[in-house]
């Protein structure tokens, strides 16, 4: 893998790389679609985690080559996957039971908005006067997963903060988010609510983050720049 400088990275790559640092060896991990999926590219070599797919699998591996793709071995996004040694197939209701019941250690989920209470919104926007597109498995993940990481760009196309005081979108999970990772900053959500700024993109100060963030936050004593070991 090439090791670009942070300055040369896309926002998606920054988020994915930083999310990867939240994952611990041996954990059971569920990655949502989009940016979260990229996270798996940046886990340290030698780290062994168990990837969970909602449709009913623990322990899947990389995407197969086209001719090796087996249409009966897929992930929750209908993508072909491979099964690693030690993988386990289960039925869907057991898989979602595992999600509700705290057997997933960590999930990285894309978000439309998060807020300073840890509320996460990612399933519904208004289109033609209707809520669209639906929760899929994201509410189950937010409900039961021990550590929910919200992964999103810090601001929308107009430059408005997606890290809100209070989101008004229908929620995916109430007070579920433990860590917010954006392309500009990393916040912890405190157990009693409220955000703690832990890191910012190198070169950005806490005040720079305050200028682009709607939510209130305090600054960690050990506030520091994001650091990717690109060696």
């Amino acid at each position, binding site marked *: 893998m090439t090791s670009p400088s942070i300055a040369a990275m896309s926002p998606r790559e920054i988020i994915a790389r930083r999310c990867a640092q939240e994952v611990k060896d041996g954990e059971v991990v569920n990655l949502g679609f989009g940016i979260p999926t990229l996270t798996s590219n940046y886990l340290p070599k030698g780290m062994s985690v168990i990837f969970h797919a909602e449709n009913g699998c623990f322990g899947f591996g990389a995407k197969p080559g086209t001719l090796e793709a087996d249409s009966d071995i897929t992930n929750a996004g209908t993508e072909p996957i491979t099964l690693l040694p030690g993988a386990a197939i289960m039925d869907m209701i057991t898989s979602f039971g595992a999600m509700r019941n705290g057997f997933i250690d960590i999930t990285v989920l894309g978000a439309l908005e998060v807020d300073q209470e840890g509320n996460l919104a990612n399933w519904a926007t208004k289109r*033609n006067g209707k809520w669209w597109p639906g929760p899929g498995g994201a509410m189950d993940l937010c409900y039961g997963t021990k550590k929910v990481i919200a992964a999103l760009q810090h601001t929308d196309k107009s430059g408005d903060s997606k890290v809100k005081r209070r989101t008004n979108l229908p929620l995916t999970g109430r007070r579920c988010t433990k860590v917010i990772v954006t392309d500009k900053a990393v916040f912890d959500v405190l157990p009693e609510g409220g955000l703690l700024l832990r890191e910012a993109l190198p070169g950005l100060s806490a005040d720079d983050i305050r200028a682009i963030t709607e939510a209130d936050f305090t600054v960690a004593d050990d506030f520091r720049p994001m650091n990717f070991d690109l060696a």
Partner: protein
Amino acid sequence: MSRSKVLSLSEAMVRVKSGTRLMTGDFVGAAEPAKCLEWLVDNKIGNLTLITCTPGMTGGFGKGHLYANGLVSELISSHVATTNESSEAYLSGALMVRQLYPMGTWAEKVRAGAVGIGGVLIPVGVGILDQPGLFPDLEEPKQKVTVGGKEYFVEEALRAEVSIIKGWRADPLGNVEFRYTSGQNQRDIAMAGDYAIVEVNEIVPVGTIPPDRVGCPGVFIDAVVQGYSLEDQHRRYRDHWIKLGRLQPIAEGATP
């Protein structure tokens, strides 16, 4: 002797009529009963209430053709937009969706219908999905109950008039074997239908499937129909995955 449950596609599918409440097995288009779905499109069986995990896989595949052809009038699911076709039908008002369920809730509701219980107490989404006005087409507010000091949704069992599932192989008794992640909740779906059809890659003699490899006992199945061969199924999915950019195109000269 037990009669064989093997039927032709149309002998089985004639059970699905305009207006039928239909449940199908699949997970975002994986392990869909492809031939049965094609039959519905070919025979223009419409006004269906479709109970399914998600609308399916996008880009003109399987269930997507049902929405594109206006055959589904109501969807009971966790999502409206895993296919562009369903998304358009929903946004245009052609596809009724009374409420959306978290996928795990949807699966538990189907299971409740499968195993003859009235429903389940679901904690997911309490305080969110019961917000007034969220689902304006809901006739009554979502029922809740408090157990052990915690509030739960009372989620009623879901059943269908006809269920169609997809297996790898089945015997004439209806015993079905699944491969890898294709099992999903297919057995529950079969059990939750008044009439259950399984489409398989292969029909094998009784005794072929080891008893502990049966994923859906034949007792739950009414009709076994021949679907695509496993090889053809792989080819269909690989081709579609290439089209969607999920797999690399096969290089010129390689043997597909």
